[in-house]
């Protein structure tokens, strides 16, 4: 299944993301060897399904940390992790992460990644970052958990309301091992 891009004009080319639901997204993360979770500035401002977006992000980050994976906080996202325990975070600029991810040997936890998961990043920055990865990081798959559809990812949610988004994120959290 494919979807229209959230930004109507964002039609990058013949290759376009596959639409997934929350459960599938969770399974994709589960299946990955060393997923990297990258969260951005919208963690500070957005809500999903009536909860703060940061709550979902923290849940996901915790489960990933339990598997030895890292969460990269871009922009000011680190501020929502201030008093959170049991989470491996690292501060980087989004473009810095994406830049380094082009190197197949780079890992935020010193191991190469096979999956990158975006959440809460400014739409166009995320879209452009995903484009960089699509073209220049063929060793990686990309998944976004935003409510805005991202054609440049390998997998993306469709465009959805904030309510449905909350449900989908809930599903992701439930599915994660």
């Amino acid at each position: 299944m494919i979807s229209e891009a959230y930004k109507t004009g964002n039609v990058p080319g013949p290759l376009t993301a596959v639409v997934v639901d929350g459960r599938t997204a969770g399974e994709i993360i589960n299946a990955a060897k060393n997923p990297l979770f990258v969260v951005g500035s919208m963690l500070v401002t957005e809500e999903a399904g009536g909860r703060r977006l940061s709550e979902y992000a923290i849940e996901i980050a915790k489960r990933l940390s339990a598997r030895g994976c890292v969460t990269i906080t871009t922009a000011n996202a680190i501020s929502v992790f201030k008093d959170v325990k049991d989470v491996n975070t690292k501060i980087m600029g989004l473009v810095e992460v994406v830049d380094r991810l082009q190197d197949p040997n780079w890992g935020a936890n010193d191991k190469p990644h096979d999956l990158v998961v975006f959440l809460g990043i400014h739409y166009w920055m995320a879209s452009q970052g995903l484009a960089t990865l699509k073209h220049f990081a063929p060793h990686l798959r990309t998944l976004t958990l935003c409510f805005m559809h991202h054609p440049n990812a390998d997998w993306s949610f469709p465009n959805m309301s904030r309510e449905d988004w909350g449900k989908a994120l809930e599903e992701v959290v439930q599915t994660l091992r």
Partner: protein
Amino acid sequence: MKEGPFNARLKSLRTPNLSLSDLEISIGRVKRPEEVAEGEEPMGPTPMPGIKDLRYWDEILLRRYKPFYSPICDMCCFCVFGKCDLTGNKKGVCGMDIRAQQGRWSLLTAVTGLSTHFSHAKELVEWLIETKGPDVPIDMGEKTPVEAPITRVVTGIVPKKISDFEPVLDYIGREIGDLVASIHIGQESDPLDFESKVLHAGMLDALSMEIADIAQICALDFPKGEIEPPLVEFGVGTVDINKPVILCIGHNVAPGSEILNYLEEKGLTDSVEVCALCCTAHDMSRYRSKVAKIVGPISKQKKFVRSGFADVVVIDEQCIYTDLQEEARKVKAAVIVTSPKAMRGFPDRTNAPTDEIVKELLDGAPGVLIFDPEKVAEVAVRVAMELAPRRQKYKGLPDVEKIVSLAKYCKHCKACERACPNSLKISDAMYAAADGDLSKLAELEDKCFGCGKCETECSRNIPILSMIVKAAERQLKEERSKIRAGRGPITDYEMRMVADTWGSGIVPGCIALVGCANYPGSEREVFEIAKEFLERGYIVVATGCAAMAIARYKDEDGKTLYEKHHGIFDAGGMLNVGSCVSNAHIIAAGIRLAVVFARRIMRGNFAEIADYWLSRTGACGIVWGAMSQKAYSIATACNRFGIPVILGPHGSKYRRLYLGRREEPTPVYNVKTGKRRDEVLMPEHLLYVAESKEEAIVTAIKLCMRYNDFTEGRRSKIRHYVDAYFKFFGRMPEDLKYLVRSEDDIPSEMREVVLEELKREGWEPRKLPQQELVDVSTLEKEKLWTFEAMRRGLRWFTV
């Protein structure tokens, strides 16, 4: 030596290896050796460089800061071999891959920006020569003996009168041709060579901006580096709509200044209200600060025109919504277009009798095209005076009840939100408005750049923008404040005063806020960034839309930052440098520093000067609302001169950044001994995109650090870095080990926490004596022309 045309002759001077030629360049022709005055500043290695002549400098930059590409399109549509799919490792029919294609787009974007400034400069110079004569002296005031630093550095020419810019313009025009030619199918293929051309375009952009601003400063007597230029009335609310209102929009001051002249001549200054938007507003207020009012930046164009306040709208060039004339027509305002670059389909009435044109417009002609600024002035004033009384009923917006009923009609499909460049939450605001609560609509105003894209997508034809403006009417009308008129150059005098502290890093940096108004969050963010840095004792300079965004907001005590802070180029100074073309003066500041502080040769000595910026001079550009091709070429201009720049999130759509990787060792050289050693990369990036205001602030602090920071300077910079991190993120930065050279660099009050962090990161102090640490350049010794010239026994006066 044979006589011959200038440009052909020059070629022999353009040598990639540095042989100190015994020829000097004066205006438009090469001096014979016997003509060169003794003690005159020698010519550097690259006067009037062509594409290939500064490639060696670009290689240094691009090895440190690799182009980072983010394609916004996977296809190429440049030639009819295509349309080609370039996804991943596919090549186009012509052999291009996606990386080279991004380089090509980067070049196209930069050269579009460059051409725009060039064309603007050319038109200004031609018009000024025509009206004021070719001999207007280039005089920037006694405090600024170095009149045109960029012109000197790039071309080697020392201009004495405005017509001396003519050969410089010829040079730029020819280079533009070469740059555009490189975009053609089957030419350049290497991303780095594309980027070298991009950087070349950037440098020429700086040169074009300098010409434009110096020409208008000298010929129209704008402020010449005044530290207290007059305050100008700013904001929608300052416009007196009881008078006939003329609104000028764009970048070319010619028509606007003639309107001001005409009013003066006719004694009508008090009878007609003259206001302006965008850089034309800056420049009109530099011309007549007491008369011309500044409405605001590009984001106000449609908002103000739609309000119906303007009776006559005069459009010149650049960044003017291309359907603005239609907006004007809807409110029955008369439209006059004036630029060959934006003729917009109107009939050319330049040679028609003025009476006839006035009549046409009063009879409802949709608009006229007039190339003669004097005629524009007379027509504008006469039409405004006659038209104003007739169109009172258009001066206003839909009323509140109308808005509520329109909001009820919304089907909440969010097509508007998906089209809105800032994804504003229109649907939510419509829900509230339908319930009679306009506050959510009003809140959008600050974040909305007034494009109207939402409206073109709404299948219900809801006039979303008008509703936002109406909802925000009160706050808009209350928008009245003061902005300092654009001051023009940073003076050599000021530079002498600040040289020690800025040059050593004690003044922790100069933050340049420039660029367009498509801010990621709201215009307020630019104000907040400025405030943050002013409070930290940085020098803050601003131009164009950004200078206006800052003026829009007031501090707790009701003052703008311009009123609150001094206007000196020194710690805590808040400078409005001027319009977009005034950006040249910001770049020039670092050239002045290199001359004042280190006596470096300017003329034709690009690489050494840029190295000085890159390795010594703490500054960072923030183009929070980067939007136009000009903003890209301005950023690129900074980059070629060695100045790092941070863009707002939309900047990722430019497709290319220059990112460094701090852990990769980079070579630096001792300027005196020439000894090479490897260092961490500093500044870390040359062109960066930040996602939030906070990220922009901490990154800018970091990007102000330089190899040559004295200990005291570096300590101050680290203090701000750590402090800002705690302020915004509540924790320590993770990369201090790259920034702290020795324990002396750590501010005493945070010594322990920092050392602890450093220890965790396995930090080792660098074991070099202070002098060795700071006498650093990125250029090899034999490419430092000043030293080379001295070694060759040359002696000269620097200004």
